[in-house]
């Protein structure tokens, strides 16, 4: 039992992610002023769906928050509120808080009311205003369902008090006294769902809940049409319900609750005052079997089972009013009472239809492991195919023989397949950029700067793992840009810039790599200051002459921080050096360009995928090795004068008058003893991004090609100096070098004598 529930829960949270994403999209549309009616509807639906799902899992805080958010959005939808800049800003914050709540619920973290109090208060303020407005226009809003519960008055046990909830926004909740209770008009609702209603995943329970929010509700299930069990078609709808609502809301408000199933059911609503009421259908809240608990039925829908008309009566009245109410009843009642008449039925029903067919994107969720297996297998095909080509070549068949032509076509196909499979792992950077938008909002609020984030190329796709691992470095860089990059509003105005700072986040494909640029339009890097700080901190020699780009690169030194004060945001000592190593771990590079007064741009260049790598195939001591191409600065053959003895066991190489330590790859990996003479050997000049370089001796350079990366960690474990393995065209395994690891672990020993014990380690 617990397992399926956990799965459903997990899928709910995945859905939440998607819904939050669409919420963000709409908010951005609103922010840019391109919003139309549908935008608000989309937002509303997203929040509403989250609320619905959260209710099913008993996530009360989430429901309460989503509900307030939804209420305010509904006011915008009704035209009671204009989405001005301030409101959109508040919505952004709400969206952030909502995703916090979702995350907390998912990870089972503690709910901290103080975090949300501020936002809730703002929402309440808006709801409150609205309520008071309405009171003037409308008659007594039915906030009294709460009062009923409190006083134990009324025919049915009213909605109970909500102890766990923050106080409701409107003060007028208290004003709306219970005096009006008995004069409430009674609405009889007859609701007969058609089979299509269930087929499209709707659940009467939710509809009834929405109706319950309008007032005092009793529900009765009518099972007349229910055939005997043997004749029952579980896919068909047989049940109908009679609802009796004691509420001041008009018929329109009730119809609105059924908006989403418009056209999928028969709905009749008749209104009568309580005084002249017909004999009401028996309230069934006590008779309702408690087996159809809301959680369970909620779970059923989340599992996307078509809810069949239940043969037993258990599902018949899932709402009994004794069930603890998860949401405050008053605000929805108010908002629904807001402008019931003003809504054009036409526009509403189109909205409802759109949501009924709510399939935002046709996607399939696949376990990442399966995709990885597929990627692996395709890698195999590529390797196999290379082997096949080799043997066909060796068989000496003429170039235009059918086998050769067939093989060429096969080659083309494998390439296509490989590309498509890589595409499966690729995801647009959009989700990442949205997270950054939030960072900008929070960071700018923290330092009191007006910042606008412009994102470009958010549909650029990169490998999923890369996206995940980019989040931290990007966050850091964005915070840096807000905190250090941009000047304060006064300073900006003083130099004739707009007070609002602009940070641009741009992703694009460039020659087989993805380039992500983070630029700000701030003051640029203060090179004098950077230089001075580096000297003060003892990071560089004061006498060293540095070019502008050299100085810019000082930012990447460990322990460098320009902020004279440690601010809340950045400058905690972990700086750009951490960012850089994170980027490097992804096989990427990072560079800075800065113009004084114009701003700073950081460019991150990343490989499209982590599964394939551009490498140079080299041979050393009879072994074939792959060196990642992105670390090789140049390759050269050593002349006899280029190599100089350095220490008793070491050599340095003179490359255009700079001395670089010499490393013998064969000796470092323990394949052989250091050579007696390195003259005329081939070296690869390997550069670390911190400027550290090494000349690595290899026997020969064989080829340069893409190789499929095969991890060694899982099967064997970490090997010093080795990043991974790959399979070459002849089926042999070649190891892929981890040059940075190799250099940092290197003994540097390049003399045969007295060296054996050094290389052994």
């Amino acid at each position, binding site marked *: 039992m617990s397992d399926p529930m956990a799965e459903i829960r997990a899928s709910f949270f995945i859905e939440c992610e998607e819904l939050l994403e669409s919420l963000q999209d709409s908010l951005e549309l609103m922010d840019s002023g391109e919003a139309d009616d549908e935008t608000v509807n989309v937002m509303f639906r997203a929040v509403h769906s989250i609320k619905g799902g959260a209710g099913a899992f008993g996530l009360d805080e989430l429901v309460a928050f989503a509900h307030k958010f939804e209420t305010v959005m509904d006011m915008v939808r009704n035209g009671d509120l204009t989405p001005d800049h301030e409101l959109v800003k508040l919505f952004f914050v709400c969206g952030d808080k909502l995703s916090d709540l979702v995350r907390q619920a998912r990870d089972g973290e503690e709910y901290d009311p103080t975090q949300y109090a501020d936002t809730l208060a703002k929402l309440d303020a808006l709801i409150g205003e609205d309520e008071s407005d309405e009171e003037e226009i409308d008659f007594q809003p039915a906030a009294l369902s709460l009062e009923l519960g409190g006083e134990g008055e009324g025919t049915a046990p009213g909605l109970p008090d909500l102890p766990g909830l923050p106080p409701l926004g409107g003060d007028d909740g208290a004003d709306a006294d219970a005096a009006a209770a008995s004069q409430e008009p009674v609405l009889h609702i007859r609701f007969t769902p058609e089979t299509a209603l269930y087929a499209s995943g709707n659940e009467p329970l939710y509809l009834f809940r929405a109706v319950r929010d309008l007032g005092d509700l009793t529900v009765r299930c009518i099972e007349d049409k229910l055939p005997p069990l043997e004749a029952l078609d579980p896919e068909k709808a047989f049940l109908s319900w009679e609802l009796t609502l004691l509420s001041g809301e008009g018929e329109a408000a009730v119809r609105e609750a059924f908006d989403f199933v418009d056209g999928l059911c028969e709905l009749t609503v008749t209104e009568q005052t309580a005084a002249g009421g017909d004999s009401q259908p028996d309230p069934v809240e006590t008779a309702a079997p408690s087996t159809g608990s809301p959680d369970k039925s909620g779970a059923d829908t989340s599992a996307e089972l078509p809810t069949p008309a239940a043969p037993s009566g258990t599902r018949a009245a899932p709402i009994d009013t004794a069930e603890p109410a998860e949401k405050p009843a008053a605000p929805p009642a108010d908002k629904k009472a807001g402008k019931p008449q003003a809504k054009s039925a036409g526009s509403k029903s189109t909205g409802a239809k759109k949501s009924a067919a709510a399939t935002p994107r046709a996607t399939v969720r696949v376990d990442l492991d399966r995709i990885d297996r597929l990627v*692996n*297998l395709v*890698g*195999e095909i590529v*390797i196999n195919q290379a082997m096949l080509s080799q043997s066909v070549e060796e068989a000496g068949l003429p170039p235009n023989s059918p086998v050769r032509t067939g093989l060429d076509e096969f080659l083309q196909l494998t390439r296509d397949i490989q590309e498509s499979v890589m595409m499966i792992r690729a995801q647009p950077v959009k989700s990442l950029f949205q997270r950054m938008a939030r960072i900008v909002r929070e960071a700018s609020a923290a330092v009191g700067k007006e910042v606008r984030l412009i994102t470009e190329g958010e549909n650029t796709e990169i490998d999923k793992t890369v996206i995940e691992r980019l989040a931290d470095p990007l966050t850091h860089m964005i915070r840096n840009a807000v905190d250090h990059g941009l000047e304060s509003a006064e300073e900006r105005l003083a130099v004739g810039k707009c007070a609002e700072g602009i940070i641009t986040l741009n992703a694009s494909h460039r020659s087989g790599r993805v380039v992500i640029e983070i630029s700000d339009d701030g003051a640029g890097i203060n090179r004098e200051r950077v230089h001075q700080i580096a000297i003060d901190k003892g990071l560089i020699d004061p006498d060293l002459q540095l070019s502008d780009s050299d100085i810019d690169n000082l930012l990447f030194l460990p322990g460098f921080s320009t902020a004279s004060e440690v601010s809340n945001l950045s400058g905690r000592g972990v700086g750009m050096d951490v960012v850089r190593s994170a980027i490097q771990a992804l096989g990427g590079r990072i560079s800075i360009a800065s113009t004084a007064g114009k701003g700073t741009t950081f460019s991150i260049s990343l490989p499209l995928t982590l599964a394939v790598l551009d490498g140079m195939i080299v041979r050393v001591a009879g*072994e*074939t090795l792959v060196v990642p191409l992105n670390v090789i600065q140049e390759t050269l053959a050593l002349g006899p004068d280029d190599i100089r003895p350095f220490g008793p066991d070491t050599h340095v190489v003179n490359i255009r008058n700079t001395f670089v330590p010499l490393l013998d790859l064969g000796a*470092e*990996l*323990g*394949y052989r003893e250091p050579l007696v003479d390195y003259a005329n050997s081939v070296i690869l000049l390997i550069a670390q991004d911190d400027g550290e370089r090494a000349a690595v001796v290899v026997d020969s350079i064989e080829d340069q090609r893409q190789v499929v990366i*095969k*991890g*060694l*960690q*899982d*099967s*064997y*474990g*970490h*090997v*010093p*100096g*080795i990043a991974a*393995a790959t*399979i070459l065209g002849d*089926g*042999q*395994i*070649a*190891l892929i070098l981890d040059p940075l690891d190799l250099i940092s672990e290197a003994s540097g020993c390049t003399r045969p004598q007295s060296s054996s014990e050094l290389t052994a380690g």
Partner: protein
Amino acid sequence: MTEELNETAAPVEVEEKELLSFLVSGQDYSVDIMSVREIRSGASATSLPHSPDYVRGVINLRGTVLPIIDLAKRLGMEADLDESRNVIIVVAVEDRTFGLMVDAVSDILSIPEHEMQTPPEMRADVEHNFVSALTIVKDRMIRVLDLNAVMPPSREEAA
């Protein structure tokens, strides 16, 4: 022999262990057949730097990188046979898969649980650590290998 055992075993429900036996430097060893994935001929392995001498290297097993352990070296014996005739037994322990390089595979044995003997404590033998049980089949002593002990210790690293 196996048939006889089966006949007697069936009614009494004797727990039997099936073992794959093989030769390492002329000695009989065996592993639980349930951990054996496949048997394949030797291939030239790519050696791993900084690895213990009994780790032969890695080979390509249909796209998987498979570490190979030279069992003779691992058990501290002389590897005397012509290497090209070696056989690799691919075994899986927990979630790790690796190959054992042996001289030859000999037989599949069904041994009743009660015929398994615990190996005696022998301080002088390093090799002893790798044997989890002993049994006698046709006057030959068969050692049952403890695969967990044979595997090189996995060097866990936060990836």
